[in-house]
């Protein structure tokens, strides 16, 4: 018999709200199955089972906000009889939480394998937010999105055709200002405030010639269907991950006054969610994946993040973050380290610039790469070597 607990999805998380069960009492569950969806400040997170067994009964009602570590449900071990009359502990929906200290019983780390489950309708982040504001029960909404996902329009329809604007907001252009920070914005604010308070950042910048990397991508894509094509971004993630393997002081976690380098590199990929914010879930073992596997992992991750769903194990364990502006924006991005990580690599928008090559000036596409490092763990000398190593790796992209 085991308890299925509210996991910790980062040092700044104190509580989460149970929004959905994906299994019914009596259902068999396997390690890695997604059992529940929890609304945290980072958005809706799918929580995986960490043991095989029978999902016996929920202990917490839908809608309840409970501290990290709270038992959400009982999982009976396989072969065990159904539990005897235990106190029917459908906990009352807690009052708005509760900066309770995390109970000592830390939840086991969530399972890593990318099990595909979750047949339930997905909900776009904007739709979920509106449902929250309007008090619309998402279980009662029929999704009309292309894959059956619940869209903003569905929630609006359910809410009685009311306009999407918050009801009390004054007319006029300043609607946004009247809204409180959403959960995700509050989470970003909390994490970044902690980062700026605790982490003595140093910054380095370097301009990388993309000629070799772009030529490699163009050649790679030439004979491939769009579904198999690479983006330059995959090369950036791979190069950063390989460099982080070589320079371990940039990949790991600083907790309790000490840095623990991570044996595995899990690159956190910053993904923009339209109108909501930013999350940076991990691609596990990103240094080990081939470029096509890494690209497939990125596509899958972005799709799930955009659909408003990703997994606990992806949120909890990035060891270094890569934040890339892509093809729109400005030349340089200076990141803020996401605690308890100790480094973030910022990638700006690639631009054409005059560039000296072999004593001549030519026009090259280049990109600015920056490193924000944690002075408690490393210094600019090592940071410079790390950033330069990323450049070197990108110059021989075929070896990535």
């Amino acid at each position, binding site marked *: 018999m085991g308890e299925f607990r509210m996991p910790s999805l980062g040092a700044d998380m104190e509580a989460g709200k149970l929004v959905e069960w994906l299994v019914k009492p009596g259902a068999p569950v396997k390690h890695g199955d997604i059992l529940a969806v929890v609304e945290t400040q980072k958005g809706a997170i799918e929580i995986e089972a960490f043991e095989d067994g029978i999902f016996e009964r929920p202990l917490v009602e839908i809608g309840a906000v409970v501290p990290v570590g709270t038992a959400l449900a009982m999982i009976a071990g396989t072969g065990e009889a159904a539990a005897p009359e235990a106190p029917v502990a459908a906990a009352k929906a807690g009052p708005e939480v509760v900066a309770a200290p995390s109970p000592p019983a830390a939840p086991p780390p969530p399972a890593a394998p990318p099990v595909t489950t979750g047949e339930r309708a997905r909900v776009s982040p904007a739709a979920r937010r509106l449902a929250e504001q309007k008090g619309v029960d998402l279980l009662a909404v029929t999704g009309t*999105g292309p*894959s059956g996902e619940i*869209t*903003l329009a569905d929630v609006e329809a359910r809410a009685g055709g009311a306009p999407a604007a918050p009801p009390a907001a004054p007319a006029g252009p300043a609607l946004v200002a009247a809204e409180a920070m959403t959960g995700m914005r509050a989470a970003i604010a909390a994490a970044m405030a902690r980062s700026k308070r605790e982490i003595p950042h140093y910054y380095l910048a370097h301009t990388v010639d993309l000629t070799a990397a772009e030529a490699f991508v163009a050649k790679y894509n030439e004979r491939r269907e769009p579904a198999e094509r690479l983006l330059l971004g995959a090369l950036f993630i791979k190069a950063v991950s390989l460099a982080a393997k070589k320079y371990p002081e940039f990949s790991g976690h600083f907790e309790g006054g000490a840095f623990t380098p991570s044996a595995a590199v899990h690159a956190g990929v910053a993904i923009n969610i*339209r*109108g909501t914010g930013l999350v940076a879930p991990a691609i596990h073992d990103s240094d080990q994946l081939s470029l096509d596997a890494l690209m497939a992992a990125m596509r899958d991750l*972005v799709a799930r993040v955009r659909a408003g769903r990703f997994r606990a194990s992806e949120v909890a364990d990035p060891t270094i973050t890569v934040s890339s502006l*892509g093809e*729109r924006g400005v030349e340089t991005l200076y990141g803020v380290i996401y605690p308890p990580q100790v480094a973030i690599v910022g990638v700006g928008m690639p631009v054409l610039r005059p560039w000296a090559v072999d004593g001549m000036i030519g026009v090259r596409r280049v990109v600015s790469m920056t490193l924000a490092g944690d002075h408690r763990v490393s210094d600019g000398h090592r940071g410079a070597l790390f950033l330069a190593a990323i450049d070197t790796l990108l110059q021989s992209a075929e070896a990535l």
Partner: protein
Amino acid sequence: MNATEAEAALTQELRRIAPDVDVAGIDREADLREQFDIDSMDFLNLVTALNKRFGIPIPDADYPRLGSFAGAVAYLVEQVP
């Protein structure tokens, strides 16, 4: 394929990628990525979807022709039999 069909198909695929953007409210001549706030991954997903739907190759070199909604409609009209 005529322009009406191309427009309907493009609208549908864009809705899959950016469900919260109203196609009626966009500037059809302006940068598609700006109008839909989509990044290179979203754009590649759009290209992938159009490729699967119509069986047209859409090489990297043609991406600029999909730079605006109107441009993409014209491209589909030309490429899709």
